Structures are given as C-alpha cells and as structure tokens.
C-alpha cells in the first residue's frame, strides 16, 4: 500500500552518518536520498538501508538536490513531503510532529524552528548573529511570521506543490531557502512552525563558509524578488 509520507534527504559524502539516520526513520515513511555527486560510498550505504537513491552525476548544489528529491516525490501519491539535512543534525523522531502540525493547521508548509526549539552549544557565531535579522528581512518581504527561515527541516503538502509546480523551476543552486519562501508567499502558500532541536554534527564539516553562505543567501533573496516581479 502506498505510504503517505516521504522524507527526502540531500547528501554529499555522508557515508558515515547516512546509515544511522536511515535506521532511525519511522517505518511508515519512505525515504529518498539524493546523492549530490558524492565521492564515497554514501549511495551504496543508503541503498543497503532500503532507501531510494537518486544520483546526481556531479555536484549541483544542495538546493538542486532538494528540488530533485521533490520532483521524485511528486511522481507518487504522497500526502506529505519532508525535507531534512543529511548530516545528522535533524532528528527523525520529529517527523510525526511535522505531519501532525500540518494536519492540525492545514498549512501548506511546516518549518522546523531552532529559535522556538533549541540548538547545540557551540553553534557557529555567524548563524546565531545573522540569521535573526535575515529572518526579519524575509518576513518583511514575504509577510510570513517566521522565527527561523533557514532551517532545512521542513514539511510540504504534496498537493500544494503539484498545483504550483513552476515554483520549483530555475532556483538558486545552493542556498535557495530565501528564494523559496518569497516564491511561496507570492503563490499564497501558508506556513507554520514547530520547535526542533538541532544536534551537533558528528562527522565531517559543513561546506557552508560564512562568505559563501552570506553571498548565496543575498543572491537568493535578489532572485526571489526578481521572480516575484516577473511572475
């Protein structure tokens, strides 16, 4: 019988953690792993744990991988599509709360908020300092009342994405969260939040540097505003 919930995870060289994430997934969800050009055995490990694996032939960027995962998920009759990071910072035990919140509120998108919840000790300075004003800026542009706009732990109502498929076309390749919210607000999609706890990364290092991240987000906002004017 077709499951109602699917989790999509974009990964890049997360061989050491992907197995652990998949083993903690509830058995009532399907999992799609989008391997964004890994050079290790991430895809093999994910397949061994029963996940559906999509391979990008080269590294295209986190947001491109996210869109690939969404497109694959939309090929089937899922009700809810959940996006989470593949670095072990998001807890699969929060998945039922995303689904419950969506069903309770009827919102199109449920975002995990580290501000409403908590984050690990030693969270990077730039994230603590720059994300709140960035979120305020996005709220001003979109009209949403978010507390954490950059969290990659999100749930989407599949039907809403099917109705607005063009929202996913031609996005920023790496840091599209800001652009995504601007597009969603233009399409009239509703957003709510739930508190989540962010864990510290156990293996490897983030590919997001301060300058690259800041520049990527700025570009994403400009692209979102331009898209809004044109569409």
């Amino acid at each position, binding site marked *: 019988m077709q499951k109602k919930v699917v989790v999509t995870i974009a990964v890049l060289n997360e061989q050491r953690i992907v197995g652990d994430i998949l083993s903690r997934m509830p058995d009532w969800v399907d999992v799609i792993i989008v391997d964004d050009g890994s050079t290790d055995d991430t895809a093999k490990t994910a397949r061994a744990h029963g996940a559906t694996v*999509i391979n*990008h032939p080269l590294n*295209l960027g986190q947001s491109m991988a996210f*869109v690939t995962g969404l497109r*694959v998920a939309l090929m089937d009759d899922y009700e809810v599509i959940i996006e989470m990071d593949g670095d072990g910072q998001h807890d699969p035990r929060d998945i039922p709360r995303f689904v419950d919140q969506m069903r309770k509120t009827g919102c199109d998108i449920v975002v995990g908020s580290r501000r409403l919840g908590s984050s690990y000790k030693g969270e990077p300075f730039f994230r603590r300092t720059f994300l709140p004003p960035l979120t305020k800026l996005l709220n001003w542009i979109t009209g949403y009342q978010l507390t954490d706009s950059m969290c990659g732990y999100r749930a989407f109502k599949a039907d809403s994405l099917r109705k607005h498929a063009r929202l996913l076309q031609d996005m920023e390749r790496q840091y599209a969260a800001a652009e995504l919210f601007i597009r969603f607000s233009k399409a009239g999609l509703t957003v709510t939040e739930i508190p989540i706890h962010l864990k510290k990364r156990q293996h490897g290092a983030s590919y997001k540097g301060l300058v690259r991240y800041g520049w990527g987000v700025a570009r994403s906002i400009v692209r979102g505003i331009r898209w809004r004017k044109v569409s």
Partner: protein
Amino acid sequence: MRPIGVLGLIIASFGIIASFRQYIRRKRILGLILWMIVWLSLGIVSIFPPIVYFIASLFSMVYGPYFIFAVSIMGLYLIVFLLYNALKGLEGQVCHLAQSIALLEYSLERSDQDAKKGGRDDSRSE
C-alpha cells in the same frame, strides 16, 4: 609595405574568411559585423599605418599606438564579459541537464523494477 604590415594583412585576410565561414554555419550577424570591424581595421592599419595617427587625433590622442592599446583593452573587456555571460548560461544548462539525467535514470530504474514485478505477478497468477 613593411613586413609587419604584410603579416597584419595576412592575419586580417584569414580572419575575414574565417568570420564569413562562421557566419555561413551559425548565421550570427552581430558576430560577423563585430569581427569584420576588427579584421578590416587590422587590414587598413597594415596597409596605411599613418591612418592610426589621424584616427587618434579625432579622439584627442597625440600618439597613435596609445589609441590602439586603449581600443584593444576595451575590446578585450567586452570579449571577457561576453564569455563570462556565455559561461554562466552554459553552467545553468549543464546543471539542468545533469538533474534531468538523474531523474531519467531513476524513471528507467523504476520502469525496470515495475516490469520485473509485473512479470513475477503474471507468472504467479498462471
């Protein structure tokens, strides 16, 4: 004519012929016009070098070669800018192509699995 003028004329001739051949293949009129200006200028300066001083004086420049340097540098900036835009466009296309390949591979894999499953179900029902 000096040897350098002859060399310039030969290069200009090759450039003109190559530009026309490119135009016949690709039908890009703007490219043809731009490169014809470059090759014809090179040809004219090769045949009549003093003309550079005359043209430089029209732009209030005393020394002819300075004018050539200035125009060449500006032309190079333009070419680099055009190349940069072309590369950015190609990068976007490569990304979409790679994503399409990934989705196509997944669809094919799924079709294979569905076909195998269908075959197994048929043999069971028999």
